[in-house]
């Protein structure tokens, strides 16, 4: 039976899970959850994700939520080497940079994406102060990334891992948005992101993420 992912592919957290399914070549189904009508707060969705968020995930009787937890499950089940769990030092570095992705990259990109894409879509006005504050935090983080990626090919070391791929959803919106030029000052980051975005799994999910025409 195919695994199921509940939520719109355009959600960064849903996209993260989808790319892992693509990486392991799993059979899966994306079940839409219409957030514009509040479907993510419905009793049916609550049974799958009690925090009222997307994604939720189902594999047989197992129901999971929180995209990074789901991603790891999928990768382990599919026999992927993107977690490096057979090597203590390598898996530790994957964990470190996955925490960094969550706490420093996606956390600053999230309000930028919300203000620049979601708010106008809902008919509101972008709060440029929030965008600027978070762009400054992003630049601070990118400086650290630039130093890291000047020493190593990928974040956890000289091997690609979930830590790199986990950046792609927010990076997709950064690269496609009006602030992409912020990356110009960080050439190693820019090159690394280009390589991540070029992975077949990422290209496939990007197609799923493309916003419907207005």
């Amino acid at each position: 039976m195919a695994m199921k992912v509940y939520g719109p592919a355009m959600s960064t957290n849903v996209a993260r899970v989808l790319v892992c399914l693509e990486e392991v070549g799993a059979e899966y189904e994306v079940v839409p959850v219409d957030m514009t009508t509040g479907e993510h707060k419905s009793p049916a969705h609550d049974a799958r994700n009690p925090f009222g968020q997307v994604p939720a995930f189902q594999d047989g009787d197992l129901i999971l939520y929180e995209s990074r937890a789901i991603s790891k499950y999928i990768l382990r089940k599919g026999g992927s080497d993107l977690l490096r769990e057979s090597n203590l030092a390598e898996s530790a570095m994957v964990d470190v940079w996955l925490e960094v992705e969550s706490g420093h990259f996606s956390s600053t990109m999230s309000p930028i994406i919300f203000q620049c894409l979601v708010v106008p879509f809902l008919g509101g006005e972008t709060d440029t102060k929030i965008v600027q504050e978070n762009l400054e935090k992003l630049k601070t983080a990118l400086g650290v990334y630039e130093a890291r990626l000047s020493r190593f090919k990928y974040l956890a070391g000289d091997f690609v891992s979930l830590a790199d791929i986990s950046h792609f959803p927010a990076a997709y919106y950064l690269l496609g948005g009006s602030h992409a030029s912020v990356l110009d000052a960080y050439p190693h980051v820019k090159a690394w992101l280009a390589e991540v975005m070029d992975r077949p799994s990422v290209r496939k999910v990007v197609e799923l993420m493309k916003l419907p025409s207005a």
Partner: protein
Amino acid sequence: MATPAVKVYGWAISPFVSRALLALEEAGVDYELVPMSRQAGDHRRPEHLARNPFEKVPVLEDGDLTLFESRAIARHVLRKHKPELLGTAGNLEQAALVDVWLEVEAHQLSPLAIAIVVECIFTPFLGRERNQAVVDENVEKLKKVLEVYEARLSQSKYLAGDFLSLADLSHFTIMHCFMATEYATLVEALPHVSAWWESLAARPATKKVAEFMPVGTAGAPQK
């Protein structure tokens, strides 16, 4: 006695530093805490930036390995020394549930609890007044989150199932601070969350780490 191979850098009163210490205590690993001063800006000095370019604590040195981010440190310590706290080997479902509740702690509970703790306990050290509006907003959200925990802990003894895991332990240090505020009543009102908290706090390792974090005595608000 030989110098321990494991060093943790930071100030133990930080729930992030103490999260790392708790993992080491639970795993029974010998370690040295290298004290740092937040006030003196030790975390911004070049020697610390070389360990953690994000200027934060804790940092763990384990032989040649230098790690930062407290949850990554805790995972490494347990993977190396007490892997059963990450789930039974080869049991994908258990490992997944440990990860789920670690993420829930990080994304759903801790941001709210930390905001409340900062306002209620740490504002004197930050040189400003408590912002009650921030407290109230986070308390309302936290009540809803704790209802999810209550439902979960009505079904199993611990968060990932009927086995203690890092998912439970990862909550301890932040909750220890939270339980020193007047909003501890939010936890006390929920029978399963309350019982789960009591059992965590009764562990020898958590009792030891609690002593590193004297938040109950350091600037606790008037009740």
